[in-house]
């Protein structure tokens, strides 16, 4: 944390527009040597955009950049790498079908390009891995590896290329609490060996824990740069200005409100009994799952990604059929065999769904905003009658949703793919909340939203509970689950590793269950 004369990186007045949307308006950012500098703010605040500019993936419209005090232009990742800048992206940029070793050396000059004998490279990388505590098997194919390991591969890729500045974009997204701890200690090792790190995150606790300084971005503007020891409330105020009153918000009071707490669950809306779902190989992705969700209840499902949450959501929505066991939705058979409800029928019966990968699974980028908002509801009244669409009703409904969820749309006829990331998320959420659902299945619903929007969604979720809907909330954010759920189930390896009731939530206990360590009692 000692500061030397010149910062290793200095960005001034950086501005970037994507078509009509402004992503960054004149941001300053400085990275001192040997520091861990947190970049904090919601999605749409511009953190990833700023770092993508640094890494050469985007070109800035205005601004200047200095490395080691010398001006530099970075037009491509190749140039960034040459200047010693490396980036670990939020969505790992790895090539399926190749091994770990091949992924790491891809694009570098190898000693034997005509035979691809990589023993020399393998030795170098192993040494590096040991140095930084990142040991792993280099010859494994990258596809099946757990997220924590794949992240180590990403870091090794950067280290192998001798970077001096390392950017980490939301690195703890898919890690258990324990794996996150490991990452933080790795970061300390990296810094002790001379790297300077930019740590992008929206999780304040982590930023305060790991970073020497924190820069807050809000809607494309740099708001303030604070020491890492600053208290949480100050940082929050910097992030959201006065759009959010920490005193009244769910997020910051950490409570749902007495009225919500008093709502007790009633009849069973969703029941799973001994459900098994197979995957592509011989291993079952869901094993012996049994639980119920009642109306007026929020059931949280905790777990690290790829432990069965996706398959669970798929089975309930209807994208997967269990190989055995029963799934009952509203008393209708949603599991298998005769009388199985189709996905469309489930939506008709009051299912609402927010998918995990919202862009891939819930969004029509080339279609306009209105069409996106009615996806899933278009085939029944009031939006259509006898197979014909009622455009007036559709447009009214859509406008209502746009207002209610504060979706910023410049032109209703533009392709929805032109909206900013945060607005796309809001659109997909708005669609799910449009009608009061019998059962809402929400998978990581607030990922990618800024604080004010997250607050809004939490309020909507709690309102749903008060109105008697049932909610199954699958989330990788333990704090969120602990805040909102009546009960929490932990998924590990496709099984329910444990459950906890509200009032008895223990963070580290749940973390142990999430990593398969088994309950301590």
């Amino acid at each position, binding site marked *: 944390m000692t500061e030397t004369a010149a910062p290793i990186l200095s960005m001034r007045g950086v501005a970037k527009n*994507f078509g009509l949307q402004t992503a960054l308006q004149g941001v300053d950012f400085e990275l001192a040597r040997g520091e861990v500098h947190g970049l904090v703010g919601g999605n749409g605040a511009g953190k990833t955009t700023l770092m993508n500019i640094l*890494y050469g*993936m*985007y070109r800035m419209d205005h601004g200047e950049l200095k490395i080691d005090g010398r001006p530099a232009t970075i037009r*491509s*990742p*190749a*140039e*960034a*790498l*040459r200047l010693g800048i490396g*980036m670990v*992206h939020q969505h790992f*940029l*790895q*090539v*399926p*079908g*190749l091994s770990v070793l*091949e*992924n790491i050396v*891809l*694009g570098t000059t*190898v000693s034997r*390009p*005509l*035979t*691809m004998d990589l023993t020399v490279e393998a030795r170098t990388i192993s040494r590096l891995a040991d140095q930084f505590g990142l040991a792993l098997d280099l010859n494994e194919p990258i596809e099946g590896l757990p997220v924590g390991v794949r992240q180590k591969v990403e870091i090794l*890729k950067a280290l192998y290329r001798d970077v001096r500045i390392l950017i980490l974009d939301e690195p703890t997204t898919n890690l258990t609490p324990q794996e996150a701890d490991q990452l933080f200690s790795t970061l300390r090792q990296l810094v002790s060996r001379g790297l300077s790190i930019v740590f992008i995150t929206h999780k304040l606790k982590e930023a305060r824990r790991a970073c020497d300084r924190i820069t807050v971005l809000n809607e494309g503007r740099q708001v303030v740069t604070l020491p890492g020891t600053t208290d949480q409330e100050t940082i929050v105020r910097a992030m959201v200005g006065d759009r959010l009153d920490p005193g009244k918000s769910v997020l910051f009071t950490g409570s749902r409100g007495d009225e919500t707490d008093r709502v007790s669950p009633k009849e069973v809306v969703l029941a799973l009994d001994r459900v098994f779902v197979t995957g592509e190989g011989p291993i079952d992705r869901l094993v012996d799952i049994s639980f119920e969700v009642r109306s007026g209840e929020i059931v949280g499902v905790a777990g690290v990604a790829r432990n069965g949450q996706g398959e669970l959501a798929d089975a309930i929505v209807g994208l997967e059929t269990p190989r055995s066991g029963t799934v009952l939705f509203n008393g209708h058979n949603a599991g298998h065999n005769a009388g199985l409800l189709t996905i469309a029928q489930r939506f008709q019966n009051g299912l609402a769904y927010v998918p995990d990968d919202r*862009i*891939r699974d819930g*969004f029509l*980028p*080339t279609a306009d905003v209105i069409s996106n908002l009615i996806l899933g509801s278009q085939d029944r009244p009031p939006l259509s009658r006898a197979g014909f669409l009622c455009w007036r009703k559709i447009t009214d409904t859509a406008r209502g949703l746009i207002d209610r969820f504060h979706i910023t749309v410049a032109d209703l006829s533009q392709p929805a*793919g032109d909206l*900013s*990331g945060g607005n*796309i998320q809001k659109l997909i959420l708005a669609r799910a909340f449009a009608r009061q659902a019998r059962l809402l299945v929400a998978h990581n619903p607030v990922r990618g939203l800024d604080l004010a929007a997250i607050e809004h969604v939490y309020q909507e979720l709690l309102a749903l509970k008060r109105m008697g809907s049932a909610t199954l909330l699958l989330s990788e954010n333990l704090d969120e689950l602990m805040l909102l759920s009546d009960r929490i189930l932990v998924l590990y390896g496709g099984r329910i590793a444990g459950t906890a009731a509200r009032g008895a939530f223990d963070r580290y206990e749940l973390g142990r269950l999430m990593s398969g360590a088994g309950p301590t009692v």
Partner: protein
Amino acid sequence: MTGSFSFAGFAQLMLFSMVPFVLAAQGTMLGGRAGVFNVAQEGIMLASASLGFLVAFKTGSVALGFGSAMVLGGLSGLVLSLGSTILGMNQFVIGITLTLAGLGLSTLMPKLAIGVTLTPPLAPTLTNNPIPFLGKMPVLGEVLFRQNVLVTFTVLVSIALWYVLFRTSAGLILRATGENPMAVDALGLDVFRIRHIAVMIGGMLIGLAGAYLPLAYTGTFTEGMVKGRGWLSIALAFFGGFEPGRIFWGGLFFAAVEVLAYRVQIGGSWVPYQFILMLPYLATMGVMALSSRRSRIPGFLGKNYDRERRSTSSQGQG
């Protein structure tokens, strides 16, 4: 089937006929491995056939004919690549446009260069180049070592492509580009340039395949002489899972079906011959139906790569 049927003769004919299939499919595979889906083979092959024939006719040199066809094929590949990378246009649309343009050009060029003649003009054709010692072997000699130079070339190219793709650094990069161009980009490599090179070389192979038809088969150019082989080569690339070795063997299969169909047509049978001629196409559909589960295609095939794109839209099958 009447007449004498010698296996060696059949096999020799099979190897002779597989050249356009395999070359065009390998060309498709090469571009496909970079993520560019070329659907213009039929048009490119026709135009290359036309051009190759004309050049050979006017200059008397088969080599120049093939050379010009390669250039045409390479240029069309470049058009596809530039249009989809820099202009960001839909690859299928460019491909269909190129097909149509190729169809039109293929009949226009002879009219301009030669005009209408009473007898079809003839160009020199490829001769068999028997390899001195091996060519005299009883069965294998006839099949393998008394073929024209392009047959040998096709075999060697298939082997070379397999080696480059799976045993060299360049091949690694190419494969990565077709699976996850963003990863390749983030590592500092030029995705567009990789696509240009792959598609251009692929186009050159497709051009060669087209010119083979007049310059090895008939010695003249007739309208529509590609007869669907361009489309079949796409089927072959899929069937082979975009892997040079499987494509080669699949090409032999396609050639075998083609040769058999013509044998039957000449030989006569109680089924109307038109139905026999339908067999290659029906067989191809059947084969594709059975093999589509197992074959693996590059993950980013047919999709354009845009570094600054904020949300991805899916083109082609989801």
